[in-house]
């Protein structure tokens, strides 16, 4: 850099406010983007099955053929959230299924408290990429589960594996965590506990 020669030129009066406005726009936009990441993340995980997401909605019954040349071991894990006083387990630890074959597995829930409660089970699949191929045609996890004080119930889950499931997946694990939803239950679910159906 050369030695500057002092001159009498005034500092150009640039429009600082205009630049500040633009920069504040970025700031506000990025604050919004932080929150936009929440729905974006959900959409991204649902589409790709990242992070063990499974399609947690009712699938169409399988119309495609059963691939009897392959067998996949589907394991079941159950746990209750910390401080959730329920018993919750699967009737069987695992089942072996052919892709396309429909199976029913029963889960048992037991409200160990003296209060009527509402719970919901949240599924997760490992490995993550298998989540896209696990289709549930019927599942207790689609809805909130009301259970009267001390009551037990059998909850069925009917599923099949998409025959397109990649060849390298031989075992997949479906894990359910049971959460206490009593405080967030919808009124009709709460009302159903008052007159136990069974």
């Amino acid at each position, binding site marked *: *850099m*050369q*030695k*500057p*020669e*002092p*001159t*009498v*030129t*005034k*500092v*150009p*009066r*640039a*429009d*600082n*406010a205009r*630049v*500040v406005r633009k*920069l*504040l726009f*970025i*700031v*506000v*936009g*990025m*604050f919004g*983007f*932080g*929150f936009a*990441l*929440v729905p974006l*993340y959900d959409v991204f*995980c649902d589409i*790709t099955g*990242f*992070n*063990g997401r499974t399609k947690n909605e009712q699938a169409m019954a399988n119309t495609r053929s059963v691939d009897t040349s392959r067998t996949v071991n589907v394991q079941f894990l159950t746990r209750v*959230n910390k401080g959730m006083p329920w018993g919750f387990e699967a009737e069987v630890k695992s089942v072996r299924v052919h892709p396309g074959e429909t199976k029913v597995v029963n889960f048992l829930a037991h409200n160990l408290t003296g209060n009527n409660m509402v719970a919901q089970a*949240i599924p997760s699949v*490992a*490995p*993550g*990429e298998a989540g896209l191929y696990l289709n549930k045609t019927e599942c207790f996890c689609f809805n909130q589960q009301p259970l009267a004080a001390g009551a037990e119930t059998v909850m069925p889950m009917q599923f099949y594996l998409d025959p397109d499931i990649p060849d390298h997946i031989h075992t997949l694990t479906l894990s359910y*965590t049971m*959460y*206490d*939803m009593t405080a*967030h239950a919808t009124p009709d679910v709460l009302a159903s506990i008052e007159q136990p159906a069974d």
Partner: protein
Amino acid sequence: MSTVVGEMDHQDHHHHAPSGITRWLFTTNHKDIGSMYLWFSFIMFLVGGSMAMVIRAELFQPGLQLVDPHFFNQMTTVHGLTMVFGAVMPAFTGLANWMIPMMIGAPDMALPRMNNWSFWILPFAFAILLASLFMEGGGPAFGWTFYAPLSTTYSSDSTALFVFSVHIMGISSIMGAINVIVTIMNMRAPGMNYMKMPLFVWTWLITAFLLIAVMPVLAGAVTMVLTDKYFGTSFFDAAGGGDPVMFQHIFWFFGHPEVYIMILPSFGIISAIIPAFSRKPLFGYSSMVYATGAIAILSFLVWAHHMFTTGMPVAAEMFFMYATMLISVPTGVKVFNWVATMWRGSITFETPMLFALAFVILFTIGGFSGLMLAITPVDFQYHDTYFVVAHFHYVLVSGAIFSIMAAAYYWLPKWTGHMYDEKLGRLHFWCSLISVNVLFFPMHFAGLAGMPRRIPDYSLQFADINQIVSIGGFAFGLSQLIFLWVVIKCVKGGEKAPAKPWEGAEGLEWTVPSPAPYHTFETPPEVK
């Protein structure tokens, strides 16, 4: 004083600055504010350093002897927060305040009133954060990364104070960054086009854009933690449909650009000092500018390398692994350029140059351990071990902090008008250099052998290594008191510094007398 932003009002003689405390409370002068930032950051450096001393004292021997584990966790958390947001970032903002107007030939920052605010809210942020340590239930104990659910379900009642203090720090950084951008875009002297700007100005311009892009995301993340903990939302709570892993995505989307916020200005400082003491112009100026830009852009695409063990699909792991490794290309360009600048230069080894040389070598070591961590399969072994602690302390302490020390020695004569005590400066350097390596190098081995981070106790086989590390830690902490001594001595007196005390130094800041007058470049210089 003029309240009109950016207006040069010569009529109300603000040359007669108010004296006493009001001078500092109401000042809009970039040099005053720069000095306050630098002193604040040094105080925070000592505060955060004392917490590190508590950590190292506890880890001196296996077993629990000095503090209980909950307090230990508060120390690691607040040490990290204080050093990142209280020491490194304000030090860079202070250097920016002092040097950018003088480097581009501007009379002051573009928005002086906002400049005053962005500094003065910082002490309040840290008063809140540090005060929370004394509350019932303790301060934040979830690590500076405040992962959910540690910061939501399992955190102490004082978490709201942590959230608000981070909000204030974020607002301060954003205001500082906006000021830097407007100053650089609008206040350059005639003839000072973008490709003539010193690299410190360039790296700060890019850093400022990173700041305004990611600090709001951090503000969003802490706000979500706040509402999850106190207002019943479920952003990170699976029971309500949220996802704790999403916290890590949002946090590291901020967090990875943040680590470049803490190193890009260092690159600018080193790019000023190495040419000055090699008496050669910087090799590859424009490639330095482009490399800085490339690093900034890539920093947005690599965040998930902090989360390899969360169970990502292999394709995503591969993407983040290769994207991370790609960053070593522009960084390598920079290291190459610094070495090429020194090649066949007439080098002298004054204290700023010693710190700059140590920076180049030790930052590169930190970069290499970063490359090791980028390799997905081995990261599963290194994750959350002392290897990670060693890595980021090499880039942040012997990287960022060493560059700040180098900058302080380089510009102290300009700030104070006196030469610092070269003998003491070198003593400070050699004590720091040796102790920093005794402190952090053995941590690599502890980590590879499996010692996890953020624990107050450890298995017996790590006892010797931790004792060495702790001794290095105490020595490094004490060495920094030499620096305090040098600075105070230099402020109080010493050999009179000429306008340009370093023979090979270049830049407009050396054309004004030392100490720099209260107002400089009220008449803009002509840059040819």
